[in-house]
């Protein structure tokens, strides 16, 4: 059976306008996308002054363009909180729907890949366009991006080292004049202007001869002084996606790693190479942040295979010679390997080359009373004290950690 088609499980989702042709269907328009957010954001700021929580959340959508090319897009969104029933937690976890036709009880009708599901509770809604996107809501991604973080212990490594701190390059953009025209940006601006003028409509073919081009829409590259990013880094993201991580812990870890990832991409651009590893009782590397972020919780928990895998990758690819290496690991603190013998061994090995290991423990509500396995063996090993320059741990309760706490956590990890 073709399960690629969307399965409707909500009784209220279908309406006359969806099933009967002839009703007016909402069409996407480009114009709405051009309206300014500023007024609404201004209003939202006022809320804080009036003492109410902010309402507009900036949703982060990660769009997968290529295998390794992810783009972070920010869209505004709101929810209207109400007292509503929560269907997500119950004795009977299994989601049910209706069906019809032949077949015995127990017969399998079809399947879909596990990874399609969002690992976090705040994944995007279903629908064709969102299939390639990921998002959680945050009030201020911008805050994270402008926050002056920097990777700690950054050292000059490898052959790409440059002697000057500044170079002159055609990186800055300028409207109206400059050295070389930036075709892509120019085209973007031209289209934008013409959408406002009504020359570009969704339902019609674009007639390029109709487009009006003003000098202000021409964007040029202009020669400018640039900081030369000489230091290269590889950042490993490790995430526990075992059964116990379901729900809040996953949400916290994903959000934090998304923040770190967005910030790295923003600040260090091409000088940072991200690698992504998921683990339950086994570890595997996934090709991109999209898969990393979206993958669903699976089996039991062993942490050391993930560290072992990092060590292997670093060794095989000789990464430590040319690159600064950072490892961020998110877990709920659960580990079947209670005394952490293998885990400590792998960590110690890692510490010989790494610039920083940042471990986030997002604890489940039931674990708040005592120390989790990871906390216990890490403290017993004394690594956190002896090698405090290189390894940091941040423990937070998953249930109550908001964005502020998560950003606070990033600071701890990279301090």
């Amino acid at each position, binding site marked *: *059976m073709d399960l690629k088609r969307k*399965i*409707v*499980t*909500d*009784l*209220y*989702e*279908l309406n*006359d*306008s969806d*099933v*009967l042709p*002839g*009703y*007016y269907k*909402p*069409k996407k328009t480009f114009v*709405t996308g051009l309206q300014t*957010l500023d007024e*609404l954001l201004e*209003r939202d700021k*006022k809320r804080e002054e*009036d003492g*109410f*929580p902010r309402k507009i959340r900036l949703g982060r959508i990660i769009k997968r363009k290529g295998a390794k090319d992810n783009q972070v897009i920010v*869209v*505004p*969104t*709101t*929810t*209207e*909180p*109400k*007292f*509503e*029933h*929560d269907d997500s937690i119950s004795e009977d976890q*299994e989601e*049910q*729907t*209706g*069906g*019809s*036709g032949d077949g015995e*009880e127990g017969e*399998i*009708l*079809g*399947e*879909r*890949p*596990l990874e399609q*599901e969002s690992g976090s509770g705040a994944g995007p*809604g279903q629908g064709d366009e969102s299939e390639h996107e990921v998002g959680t809501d945050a009030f201020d991604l911008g805050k994270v991006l402008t926050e002056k973080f920097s990777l700690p212990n950054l050292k000059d490594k490898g052959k790409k080292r440059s002697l000057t701190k500044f170079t002159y390059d055609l990186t800055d953009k300028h409207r109206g004049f400059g050295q070389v025209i930036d075709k892509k940006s120019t085209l973007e601006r031209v289209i934008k202007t013409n959408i406002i003028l009504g020359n570009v409509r969704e339902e019609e073919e674009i007639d390029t001869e109709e487009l009006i081009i003003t000098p202000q829409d021409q964007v040029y590259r202009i020669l400018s002084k640039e900081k030369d990013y000489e230091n290269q880094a590889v950042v490993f993201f490790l995430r526990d996606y075992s059964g*116990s991580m379901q729900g809040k812990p996953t949400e916290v870890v994903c959000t934090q790693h998304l923040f770190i990832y967005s910030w790295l991409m923003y600040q260090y651009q091409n000088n940072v190479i991200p690698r992504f590893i998921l683990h339950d009782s086994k570890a595997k590397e996934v090709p991109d942040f999209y898969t990393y972020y979206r993958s669903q919780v699976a089996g039991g928990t062993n942490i050391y295979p993930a560290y072992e895998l990092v060590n292997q990758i670093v060794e095989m690819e000789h990464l430590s010679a040319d690159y600064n290496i950072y490892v961020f690991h998110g877990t709920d603190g*659960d580990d079947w390997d209670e005394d952490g013998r293998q885990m400590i061994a792998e960590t110690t090995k890692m510490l010989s080359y790494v610039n920083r290991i940042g471990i986030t423990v997002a604890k*489940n*509500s*039931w674990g708040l009373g005592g120390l989790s396995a990871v906390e216990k063996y890490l403290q017993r090993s004394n690594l956190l004290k002896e090698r405090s320059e290189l390894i940091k741990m941040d423990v937070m309760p998953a249930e109550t950690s908001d964005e502020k706490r998560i950003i606070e956590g990033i600071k701890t990890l990279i301090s």
Partner: protein
Amino acid sequence: MYLIDQHTKSIMEECKSRARDAGLKFDKESLEYIVTNRDLIELSPKLMIPTLYDYWVNDVEVLKGKGIYKLYPNNPYETVINSRPAISYYNDNNPDWLNIMIFYHVIAHIDFFQNNIFFKHTWNDDFVGQALADKRLIDGLRSEYGRWVDYVIEFSRSIDNLVGYYDILSKTNLPINMGTSERVEFYFGEFLQEIHKVPEMLLFKDIEKYNSLIMEQGSIGETSFFAEVKIKYPEFQAKFDKYLEKRKPKNKDLMEFIIDNSPFLKKETNRWMVSVINIIRNTALYFSPQSRTKIINEGWASYWHDELFRKDERIKGHEVDYAIINAGVTSLSRVGLNPYAIGLRLIQYVEDLADKGKLNFNFQKINNYEIIENYDLKTGTGKEAIFDLRTNFSDFMLLNTFITQEFVNLHNLFVVGQRINEQRGTVEYYIKSRNAQDYKSMLLDKLQHPPKITIDNNKTNEKNLYLVHKFEGKQLIKDYIPETMIGIEFLWGDQVQLETTEIYQIPPRSEDEEPKYENRRVLYTVKNKKIKKEYI
């Protein structure tokens, strides 16, 4: 936005006249509009009511360009507006035959809105007109109080799903001569049972006496009954008067309670807020029946577009086109739910039951399979029965009454479950059950059901509003609780508490163990916008 042209309107009028001949009942007037994209951007956040009040949060959604689905998951936009006259929206380039089919569908919706008793409280309203008046009022207030108007709208909307729709409904439909007087209720209730603690035996005897007096003497029965009471309990009248003075109003929903009792709203400077809250409350009440009649309403409309269009000679030459569209609307999915399909089949099923005389107590007593199977009295009352459905049933009643094993077998229905196949790394869909009971509870679980939250009068005073959530197996969405309560605190003017139940997962100790669940009663307290949670 402009009206359909004269030619199309004449098609609509022809459809109306044929629908009337078939037994549908609805107002003479209806309005059909052609809408443009621009209209729609403005209409959709307003539930397609062009005159609904403005609210800035809607603008964010418009900006988001994703439609209103996220914002109103339970109030998807209507294509037919239940107002007087009814309004519907169309494309401007439909072929005539398609319009005929759609018009029949729309007419059946209008018939449903105007006859189903769950809509009774909306029957006298020109909602579009009312909304316009409300919008103007809100605009006026906004020029005076600025963004504070929007706060009141926001906080009112955060509790507008708790409106006491069924309270209103039960009052609306109570036949005038059926209710007993307050005096009778007080006498048999509080007076005899609580003040005098009369034993049950004597109480029943008294009730019998009252009933027989009513039977014998009709309306003056009550007077003569109380003449006797006066002799037996001389103090009754005094007690009753006292009761009338201090009685507490029953069945108030949260919004109504806040309007009547909030110390904050009682302040002269805040009186204007009451009208805003009332507007939000009335709007919510107006839309309440829609989501409770989704399946039956869509089933009804599908039944009639099929019934009327197939017998309409104007279908000629378009039978195949129609069949394709109709199948798209009303076919049962292999996996997934389609309210049109389920509603239509239930209505057809009821029609068939009635036609064969099976909707009958005598039939239910039969326990011989063969007789049941071949039972057919050819009563011809099927149509009558489905018109009764249309008048008196909601989704819950329809599903709860008519999803039988026979129905489930007839249409080969089953419950689909999902499970993880770890080896293949997939989620499997499988046939979980063909049992009617399972199918019914799966569907009932999908029906919209706002939480029941009441006010504890004993723990509530001017300084504290104490709310109690009745736990029905599902916890409230935790993330929404703080913000919602901060809103209520604003409207109440002081501390607000909410008693609710939360479900906690106890983690499995080993791989094979299933996780366990535990319910805990908790108390949220909000004071000065600070939230505290404790276990009780």
